[in-house]
């Protein structure tokens, strides 16, 4: 049930604007995301934390935080299913477009509402609980704006497309464009025809990803999945390196040089 492309778009054809938005920007964002994380990990391991505020307030957090996090995890899985897995694959296993669409919309809406509800609770808490608010940095505020904008736009795009337009098959346009970036054969034409809300959602997400390595969101990349497999008690030797600084080249102890 492919609906006709909505008339209101940012650029009708992939002109210079289209190339800048859908080819240049994604690659810049990708580079910033990857290099930014490497830079942050090398130079700010100490700042790499969730910066939990549970000690200040836990009543609202206990509801808001799991609601938001589990919601956004389902949203993430939904995006992987929608963007990375080609339509032909789901059809090959016998899943019709209609089945896919209905399940995606239902699950996506529930998860989206959970996420947005959780986020609302968390933002309310952050603003109203004194100690939490005073622990909020400008970086945090900017991140919250981007995060909220992305989630609201994404949810709005889905809702608008399904209520107003009777559904939009992003797997014909947005998903191939997304994959084309990673094939290194970017096709901006696929995006220029997408509805404005989807375009705005994609743009705000790109901005969010660009800011990601420099915010507290980095904690996602170190989700402690290794805990499931590592032994309970970790033994570590005292640093073999002598002193707090690494020895200069040529001054390593005998037997320790590479």
């Amino acid at each position, binding site marked *: 049930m492919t609906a006709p492309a909505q008339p209101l778009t940012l650029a009708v054809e992939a002109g210079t604007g289209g190339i800048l938005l859908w080819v240049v920007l994604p690659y810049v964002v990708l580079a910033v995301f990857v290099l930014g994380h490497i830079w942050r990990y090398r130079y700010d391991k100490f700042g790499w934390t969730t910066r939990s505020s549970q000690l200040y307030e836990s009543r609202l957090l206990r509801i808001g935080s799991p609601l938001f996090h589990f919601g956004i995890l389902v949203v993430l899985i939904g995006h992987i299913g929608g963007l990375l897995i080609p339509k032909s694959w789901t059809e090959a296993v016998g899943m019709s477009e209609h089945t896919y669409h209905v399940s995606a919309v239902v699950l996506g809406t529930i998860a989206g509402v959970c996420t947005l509800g959780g986020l609302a609770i968390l933002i309310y808490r952050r603003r109203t609980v004194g*100690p939490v608010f005073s*622990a909020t940095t400008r970086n945090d505020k900017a991140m919250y704006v981007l995060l909220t904008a992305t989630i609201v736009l994404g949810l709005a795009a889905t809702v608008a497309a399904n209520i107003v337009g009777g559904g939009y098959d992003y797997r014909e346009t947005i998903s191939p464009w997304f994959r084309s970036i990673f094939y290194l054969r970017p096709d901006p034409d696929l995006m220029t025809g997408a509805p404005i809300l989807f375009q705005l959602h994609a743009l705000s997400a790109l901005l969010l990803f660009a800011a990601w390595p420099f915010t507290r969101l980095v904690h996602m990349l170190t989700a402690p999945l290794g805990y*499931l497999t590592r032994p309970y008690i970790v033994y570590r030797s005292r640093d073999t390196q*002598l002193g707090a600084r690494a020895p200069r080249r040529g001054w390593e102890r005998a037997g320790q040089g590479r």
Partner: protein
Amino acid sequence: MRVMAQMAMVMNLDKCIGCHTCSVTCKQAWTNRTGVEYVWFNNVETRPGQGYPRRYEDQDTWEGGWKLNRRGRLTLKAGGRFKKLIGIFANPRLPSFDDYYEPWTYDYETLTNAPLQEHTPVARPKSLISGKDMKISWSANWDDSLGGSAATGEQDVLLREVSEKIKLEFEQTFLFFLPRICEHCLNPSCAASCPSGAIYKREEDGIVLVDQDRCRGWRMCVTGCPYKKVYFNHRTGKAEKCTFCFPRVEVGLPTVCSETCVGRLRYIGLVLYDADRVLDAASTPDDTGLYEAQREVFLDPHDPQVIAEAEKAGIPRDWIDAAQRSPIHALINTYKVALPLHPEYRTLPMVWYIPPLSPVLDAVRDTGHDAESHHNLFAAVDALRIPVDYLAQLFTAGDPAPVDAVLRRLAAMRSYMRDINLGREPNDTIPKSVGMSGEQIYDMYRLLALAKYDERYVIPPAHAEQAHKLEELATECSLDYEGGPGMGGAGRSPSGKGGGRRVGGSGPFGEASGGAAPIAVENYRALHDRQTSDTPSPHRQGQPRQPPQLGRQGLPTRPLPTQAVRRRP
């Protein structure tokens, strides 16, 4: 057998006067920063009392430590790996500021800035969390010396466990102080709870540390530690805990809390243990069996087989020597007077306590009887269930027998030594009645009452002396070299330590010329000598304290050193 070395501590509670010097110096050294205002790596609790954080011993609420599951296997009380990850977004068992206390400062500025007025201005308490005015209603040390215990004493978790009689007799109360630091457990549940694997146990000395670069602030360690000795720094978003002052211990110095302890009640030393037996010991079916099980894990450092295995495991020879001289080994395994704190948490804690005899002594004294007579004391230990049951809740999971035995040994030491000190014929039936020899009692007395710095703290330096020297570059005086102008003239250090290094104080025209050496320079020198000397103590160089059970040749059967004897004229 897999031999590992563990740096451990024993505290003699009879000597603790509750002065909180350890807490204050520790705080100045380690937690005098924003984000950890509420954190006390070392705190002193009054018992009976709630402790810090409030009621931390109530593991039904906090779910700290380990438990045995239905199949008898050791599991984390707060749930396994999967449950931890599911609950990672909001830890349901995290103590709040209400349980610790809301840290505050005072608005001192008002005192100087206030305009002229009828009433003296007042520095009001301001919360360090919200910055607002606050009413101080609780702190880490609120019920000090039973202050307010009439209102809060009933909240003591241990009183719930002991008999009704104790609660009724709470009015005729007893009290003692319990200084607490991180236990540096053999089976640390904080480390096991850390999703990131940031908390680790050092292979060399068993000190449990948080890798600040790997901690992501998931807060599970705070729940996991049953002693609530891992804290969350709310500014940096990282967990922090007692470090056993590892930078000091590595150069052979005791921890700050020990160094500054006024009562000299802390002992530090090595214990060798068999890492292969840790899990079995922690899985002992019966809670009351855990004390004995943990003692079984410790190895005898005099056993040639243990020494051979330790050398195979790469433990340096001077560390094995230190383990043989260790006061910890002596107090735990030789004299058997030290007991672990809450062994029922199954973490195999490594800060042990000599339970206080003073509640018993006080009770006997109050009756008007001779509180130094072993007859009276033994009878009192048997009769006075109040302190004994309470101490058993703290140290032996409720089994009064080991506490009884320790108190009897301490009582025997008192009576036996009184005879010696008064120049009377020592009564050899007293040591026999507690299964010890007179010589052992005397050695125990020496360790508990007279032991000097180097006997209380037997700390072999880590083998990174070169690192220390490298780091010292920044702090050593660059003019301080042989013949240099930095440290005065021809003077040599009087003790000849450090190769007769120059000390300050001598001017160009020989000794005593020029001005007096600044105190800071002398202090610096003394500290430096101590930190860089090859042995922990120059006074007892090469004289390992002999294991008392082997006996000493050439000693009189009744050891009567002059300083211990007050002869009548």
